[in-house]
């Protein structure tokens, strides 16, 4: 279990992602890019970023819904991401996810990834989750 009692995704941990902060509807992850995270051109693989973007919101949403109590399930149903920048091996990446709307059956959120050294946004995403609330 990570900070705030929210379990962190095994896959995210496996690739080296670290949960830095979890608040209501918010989560920040960090990852230091190494040679294992690169694509064929030697830049950070887009898959690393999409993994972190998805996880940050999954954790943020899990934390938010956890407070209302009860067993629950959630799954990403759609993700859109744009990649305005790139990162290299050695760069620290900070990813912040924020839940923007939590409705009866769906939730929406936004996440962005920055290069820590200069704050440059390298990826931004919008995600939709299917949520199932606990039944009494």
């Amino acid at each position, binding site marked *: 279990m990570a900070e705030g009692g929210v379990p962190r995704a095994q896959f995210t941990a496996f690739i080296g992602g670290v949960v830095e902060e979890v608040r209501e509807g918010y989560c920040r992850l960090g990852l230091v890019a190494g040679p294992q995270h690169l694509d064929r051109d030697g830049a950070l693989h887009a898959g690393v970023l999409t993994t972190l973007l998805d996880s940050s919101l999954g954790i943020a949403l899990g934390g938010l819904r956890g407070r209302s109590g009860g067993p629950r399930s959630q799954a990403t*149903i*759609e993700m*859109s991401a744009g990649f305005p920048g790139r990162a290299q091996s050695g760069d620290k990446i900070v990813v912040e996810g924020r839940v923007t709307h939590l409705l009866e*059956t*769906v939730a929406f959120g936004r996440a962005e990834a920055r290069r820590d050294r200069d704050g440059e946004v390298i990826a931004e995403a919008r995600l*939709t989750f*299917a949520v199932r609330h606990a039944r009494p």
Partner: protein
Amino acid sequence: MTEPLPDKGSAWSRYVGGVYYEGSAGFGRLYLDVKEHHTNKDGSVHGGVIASLMDSAVGAALHNLFRDQPDVTGYSSVEMNVSFLRGARMGDRLTAEARIIKEGKTLAVADVDVLSPSGELAAKGRLTYCVFRGARESER
């Protein structure tokens, strides 16, 4: 299976002008003749027209899918994503083909291809809908 839709769609979709052509459960095909009021200043078709045509095509596919499911009381768009691949111009007949690729309890996802008169892919879209079922409605 080709059957006309029992209703003619919303006021908006009638205004845009997509015409239902054929369909089957989970499938719908519409066409649209591009007219002046569909175009941008440079004469190319406006992206919003394409998006609207896609929404109508999926509406037809969903209608065809749910007509035998009386518990479905309605559906509404949650999300759409469109790539505009090739332009179209006034006088072109565009065909939109929608296929439901996921039918869930509360969500449905459709793929839509918009084809140019020569059959080339003009646009590609994926649309997600929330499905309302009777049982769920009564819980509210």
